[in-house]
């Protein structure tokens, strides 16, 4: 008889969950509310108003996933799927430099090549480990997500897939909204399967739209109500007074909470006001 295929008992799952890997966001406060960082084996949606830093965070994650294991990272590679053309390679270089500088600060003995002969701490090496796809229509977006299954089988060292943004083409070109919902739910299932099968993090950047609820227009993430159920985790980036904040709005195991962060020349870091305490929303 044996086990039912695909089923696991909860005790085994617990040890899986405990050994789960995270990718640091660059901000300690943000990592704290996320339970250490962006989780592998999960789909995380990150949304926010234009200019608040979604692409910056996406790029930061594509760099941070590559931090070598001996410095506390995953030592993996990244897939960056760009649907809007927001990927500016000079900025990626800057962020890579910032990451390296921080590593060297924390691990001053590592100026020589690391003992296991792994990745050299040069920005070019970090850039070489980001697989970049430029997507120009929703057809291509569907194609690349389908193709990922084969691609990731051939590139087993990828630990993060970032889609920036998942919204753009679906807002533009889809006339039949009911069909759009079905296509999107098919995609989100595929992405969850990829995350679990290949043990990597899937990060979906989403845009913002307005919705009429409770008597007024409010901001909400795009693509509709049914999509909002599809992701495991949801993080919303917003302005709170003079600072950028992130709110963990949905998570299977962590409470809703907000934390400040900053976008600096080096990339995403703790806000100046940070004292590393978690600020709760409720």
């Amino acid at each position: 008889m044996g086990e039912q295929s695909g089923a696991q008992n909860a005790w085994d799952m617990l040890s899986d969950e405990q050994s789960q890997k995270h990718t640091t966001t660059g901000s300690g406060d943000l990592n704290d509310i996320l339970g250490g960082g962006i989780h592998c084996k999960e789909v995380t949606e990150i949304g926010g108003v234009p200019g608040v830093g979604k692409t910056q965070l996406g790029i930061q994650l594509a760099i941070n996933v590559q931090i070598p294991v001996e410095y506390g990272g995953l030592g993996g590679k990244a897939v960056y799927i760009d649907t809007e053309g927001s990927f500016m390679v000079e900025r990626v270089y800057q962020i890579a430099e910032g990451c390296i500088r921080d590593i060297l600060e924390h691990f001053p003995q590592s100026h020589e090549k690391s003992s296991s002969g792994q990745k050299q701490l040069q920005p070019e090496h970090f850039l070489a480990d980001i697989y970049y796809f430029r997507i120009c229509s929703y057809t291509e977006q569907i194609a690349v997500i389908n193709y990922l299954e084969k691609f990731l089988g051939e590139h087993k060292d990828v630990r993060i897939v970032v889609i920036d943004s998942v919204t753009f083409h679906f807002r533009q070109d889809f006339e039949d909204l009911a069909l759009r919902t079905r296509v999107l739910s098919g995609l989100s299932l595929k992405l969850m399967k990829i995350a679990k099968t290949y043990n990597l993090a899937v990060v979906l950047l989403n845009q913002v739209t307005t919705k009429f609820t409770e008597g007024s227009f409010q901001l909400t993430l795009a693509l509709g109500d049914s999509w909002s159920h599809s992701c495991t985790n949801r993080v919303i980036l917003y302005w709170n007074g003079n600072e950028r904040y992130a709110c963990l709005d949905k998570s299977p195991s962590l409470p809703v909470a907000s934390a400040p962060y900053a976008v600096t020349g080096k990339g995403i870091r703790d806000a100046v006001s940070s004292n590393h305490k978690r600020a709760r929303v409720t």
Partner: protein
Amino acid sequence: MANMPVSEMRLPPHLAHLLAARRLDTAKDVLSLPEVELMAILDAGLPTARAAVALVSEAACPPYQTALALLEERVRLGGGVRLATTLCGLDEALGGGIPMGKLTEVVGPSGIGKTQFCLKLALLAALPEYYGGLDGRVVYIDTEFKFSSRRMIEIGQKSFPQIFRQEGLAQKMAGRILVTRPTSLADFTKSLEEMKVTLLQHDVKLLIVDSMAALMSLENEKATAGFRQHPLRWTLSFLKSIAEFSRVPVVVTNQVRSQSNDDGYHFSFEVDKKDGNKCAERFDSHLVAALGIQWAHAVTVRLVFESHSGHRFIKVAKSPMSPAVAFPFIVESSGITLLSDESIDVTGPGITSIHCQGQNVLAR
């Protein structure tokens, strides 16, 4: 890639025949269908449908590049990664100038200097390389009849006197700038489509749309029954793809409008907090950019022209390369000039709001 015909994909014959028989001729046809619907149309089992989707996806998926290859390609294509505006502080903040292949938006109240800025950019793109220009042609789409050749030449003469003294140069420069004046969105769309060819064949180095908002407001007044899709979205897609494809900078000007109650301001989880403050914030900045939030997401760089405290400022409100900073400026005979190259940091809500002192917006 979306319209890639199935016939060109070198699929195994039985799949190719099956798809052709059901009139699924392009990648888009096959991939727009959820799995279950594809199975129904093909009258085939799940493995067949999945195989078809996997093979079509692989064929239709664009090739990847590593970020390093992207960087090397950029370096190899030589300088010209940016169009320098000659406003030093601004160029530094933008990492060299207006980025190529991306959409840059210039937004602000009327009369503040957006067209003056565009005129200068047009000139700069036309100037020969040894004078710091791009030595190319410019397409200037003028929807509000604001383009003035006389003014542009005046800017040229005052900014680059030694160049413009040369005989025939003014004529040569002016000859490189092609001005079109569409009177409707349909006209505009048509010129854009013709533009694609022009851009590639005629060495166009800059595309300016002044202003985008005017076209859209024309359109909103008419019935849009003829359009399958919202016109702005289509235009947006098209502009972005032209920009990237031809690697030219595209500069679009946008207007402002007063804030209305339809503008969502907060997320639902924020609403409970500080109700009193919310009202105060709403009255603080009366203006928002026209064209909406979707447009705001789609532009890569947003330059806000605004006035407060008795001065005018160019504010870098959105840019992947720099934090939010502002520079005071004036408009004089040589065009826009910065009063200072020292940037002023802009924090918090100041980044997203647009100030306009000294103008009665309610009278608009």
